[in-house]
């Protein structure tokens, strides 16, 4: 009898708002410690929270993208526990009436039918500060305290680390499409905790679960799950029992360690936040927000295949990042050549972005420039080798492809007379190759093309050269 694991994820996403959840302080990242603070986010006596309406909108927007129900009435609660990075020693969160309920994330694993991972809820809360430990002391940076944080809770609806990964990837993609946050795990603006249990395949009840924290990458989450499943199975098979506890993933040892057991679990003593009014939405408001939603990634992939005639693989690569997809569509529309647009972006562009660790938003190649470059190739002005040089120049320094072509003298030679002269010269200079060709060695023609291209410094139209050699030798 084999084991089956059951996995649920709690994903925290910092929302992209100008100001914090309950005060006017900036949410900017990277400022010197304790410079984005005020009496409210430092929990000073008498300070009171004021709700950031934009954070509510972004949470509802996420919920709508994820197919959640949006209740018209929702409220905030205080969640009490003591920790130095919590200014008030309670966190303003949502307990029993969150902003979004239900919903789901579609995943497709290779070789398996697609399925939807059900969501329990999405609620809005405030982030805490960041503890920093020095040799002799500890400090807290409260710049992050009060930044709006959305928590997306899945049902215990996944069974393998691969499913959990696929869920996280798809969720992140949807949230990036919704433009609600940066969703960068390394920077800590997306974080996830997992709940995991194992049970015999025919068991009617779930096993005892452990919660794992501190996974800073998707890979970390994957390995933590693999490790934890193996640990729990080994424990149970060895006759032991799993205790309900919170465990910490250590990326250095690739193991999980117990942080606290159920006995030391916090009693959060939730009660409604008396300093904030409940959130009351209207159908009309929700409809307005719904009308402003972007397309979902899956819908976009299908549309791109249909509209641009590109292969599903290309569509998946291009749509993975909304901004790359946007860039592609703009280039394809402007150049009228979707396949070439896709090729440039998928090969050259994404390769260089990867090498130089850049985002597409930072790229110097404008939509107009890439479309122009594609046009130059399509019109025979530029051959594909020269085009790669021009692209490299555009990527490095930006600019206008036409001007680069002119400056570098890269205009392709397509003049029949000029090419004829070069071909004749190559035939005359290489009698052995001519004979080889006539004896059926087609490779010899390629050698002759190469000779012409070398003499023309790459400017001759290689297609014309090839055709002419074949004609003149046959």
């Amino acid at each position: 009898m084999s084991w089956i694991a059951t996995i649920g994820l709690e994903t925290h996403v910092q929302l992209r708002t100008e100001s914090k959840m309950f005060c006017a302080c900036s949410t900017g990242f990277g400022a010197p410690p304790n410079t984005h603070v005020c009496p409210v986010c430092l929990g000073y006596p008498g300070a009171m929270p004021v709700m950031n309406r934009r954070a509510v909108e972004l949470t509802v927007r996420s919920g709508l993208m994820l197919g959640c129900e949006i209740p018209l009435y929702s409220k905030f609660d205080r969640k009490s526990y003591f920790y130095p990075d919590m200014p008030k020693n309670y966190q303003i969160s949502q307990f029993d009436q969150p902003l979004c309920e239900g919903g789901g994330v579609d995943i497709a694993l290779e070789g398996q039918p697609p399925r939807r991972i059900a969501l329990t809820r999405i609620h809005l809360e405030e982030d805490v500060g960041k503890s920093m430990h020095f040799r002799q002391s500890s400090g807290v940076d409260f710049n992050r305290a009060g930044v709006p944080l959305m928590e997306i809770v899945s049902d215990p609806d996944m069974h393998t680390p691969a499913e959990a990964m696929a869920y996280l990837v798809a969720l992140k993609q949807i949230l990036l499409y919704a433009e609600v946050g940066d969703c960068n795990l390394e920077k800590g603006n997306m974080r996830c905790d997992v709940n995991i249990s194992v049970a015999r395949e025919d068991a009617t009840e779930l096993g005892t679960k452990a919660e794992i924290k501190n996974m800073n990458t998707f890979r970390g989450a994957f390995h933590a799950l693999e490790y934890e499943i193996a640990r729990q199975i080994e424990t149970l098979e060895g006759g032991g029992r799993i205790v309900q506890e919170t465990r910490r993933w250590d990326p250095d040892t690739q193991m999980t360690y117990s942080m606290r057991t159920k006995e030391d679990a916090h009693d959060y003593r939730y009660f409604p936040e008396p300093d904030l009014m409940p959130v009351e939405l209207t159908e009309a408001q929700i409809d307005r927000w719904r009308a402003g939603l972007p397309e979902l990634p899956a819908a976009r992939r299908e549309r791109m295949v249909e509209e641009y005639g590109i292969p599903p693989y290309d569509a998946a690569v291009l749509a993975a990042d909304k901004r790359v997809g946007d860039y592609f569509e703009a280039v394809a529309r402007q150049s009228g050549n979707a396949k070439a647009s896709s090729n440039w972006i998928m090969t050259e562009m994404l390769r260089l972005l990867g090498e130089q660790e850049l985002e597409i938003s930072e790229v110097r190649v404008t939509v107009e420039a890439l479309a122009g470059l594609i046009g130059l190739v399509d019109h025979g002005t530029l051959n594909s080798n020269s085009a790669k040089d021009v692209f490299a120049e555009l990527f490095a320094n930006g600019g206008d492809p036409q001007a680069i072509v002119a400056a570098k003298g890269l205009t392709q030679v397509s003049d029949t007379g000029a090419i004829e002269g070069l071909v004749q010269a190559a035939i005359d200079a290489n009698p052995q190759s001519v004979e080889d060709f006539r004896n059926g060695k087609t490779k010899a023609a390629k050698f002759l093309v190469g000779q012409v291209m070398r003499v023309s410094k790459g400017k001759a139209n290689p297609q014309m050269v090839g055709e002419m050699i074949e004609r003149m030798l046959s």
Partner: protein
Amino acid sequence: MDNESMGFNFNSLTVHALQEQLQSGATTSVEAVTSLLAAIAERDGELKAYVTLDAEDALAQAAEADRRRADGEDAPLLGIPLAIKDVLNVTGQPCTCGSHILQGYIAPYDATAIAKLRQAGAVFVGRTNMDEFAMGGTTENSSLQVTHNPHDLDRVPGGSSGGSAAAVGGGIAVAALGSDTGGSIRQPASFCGCVGLKPTYGRISRYGLTAFASSLDQIGPMTHDVRDAALLLGAMAGVDPMDSSSVDCPVPDYTAALSGDLKGMTLGLPQEYFVKGVDPEVESAVRAAVARCRELGAEIREVSLPHTEYAIATYYVIATAEASANLARFDGVRYGRRAEGATDPIDMYGKTRAQGFGPEVKRRIILGTYVLSGGYHDAYYLTAQKVRTLIRRDFEQAFEECDALLSPVTPTPAYKIGEKVNDPLQMYLGDMFTATANLAGICGLSVPCGTTAAGLPVGLQIMGPAFGEEQILRVGHAYEQAEAGS
């Protein structure tokens, strides 16, 4: 009790009288503040109403007010000195809340009520003593000092705004601010013989008022007469974007409501507030006041607030639950006092809070933590919320037939210092006529209505519906004027 100095009699000097003198040029703010400081120096040694006095700063503010007046400005409270309960944040001043745990804390911002008064020209003279974090009814729970009742130094001034009440009642303040969570303005006002107003919940912004119980707290004035209470209320009232619980309801000229008669008004007597246990001298003073109101043209009617007997239990569940979270922030991490010698953060919290909080605050934090804890939350906290709704409905029904309700403020006059310190339950019962207004979110006014044979003041409570401040001020003013004229 001679607080006359340079022609000022601070035993009775009102805001509106001083206003007239300042406007006419008969005096200056510097003169008024100078003589007030002299009166304080003379009398506060025995009253111990003030915990912080910065004479230099007060005189500088007064000089600034005089300058503004010389420049032709006439803000409503320009140059008027006020005493502020030590629970409100005033930029650059300490705000101890009567607690060791806020030792060294200097407020970096103004409470909205303070900012409005500052805008109106008020001068903040000093900070008054209080029960620690406003928890108590005698000001004996202050960690700083014990304040004495100006009418009998062996007795308590009431609380938690006992410092403000003693200062006004004792003639060492023109007017003061208090805060009222379960009676903390009205009860000390009645003990010290001054006027105290707890406005409707949401009428004055709570931003900058150190929270005790957020759903019950309100700031209010403590004054020599009802007109002053109306003036100060008008200066502080109004919606505030920094306080989501403040209500966007027009702020009338409250002094315009002070007509001097009660014709056409119906006043209710809640039968549950005239019961056994009320001191006979208190009851007869209040009954006499009721008779006076009838003479002034009011129709008096008996009403019932049937859930009154549950008010104290309900109040102490809700107030302590909210307090347990509100006071969690006092941990020594960011401001205030931090215990030495801690080994880790949790140890630091434990030591800091063990040393920093007094016994009553600890008692209430423990109570509040208990009523919210897993397994008890529904039985206590949820039940209390349901009863709170019933208490609110009691008042809504009563106000369908009455413009205001009349009752004693407290069952007894001021008691002896130390008399009830070891009997918290008995002390809590003293809140039974006042806590109901906080639970219902309505307004209540305490007006002096005579003294006992021993010379202790008795207070008449006038409760009105939400945003019914005009009605209760009108009743209080008419009664006060009639008494003064008789």
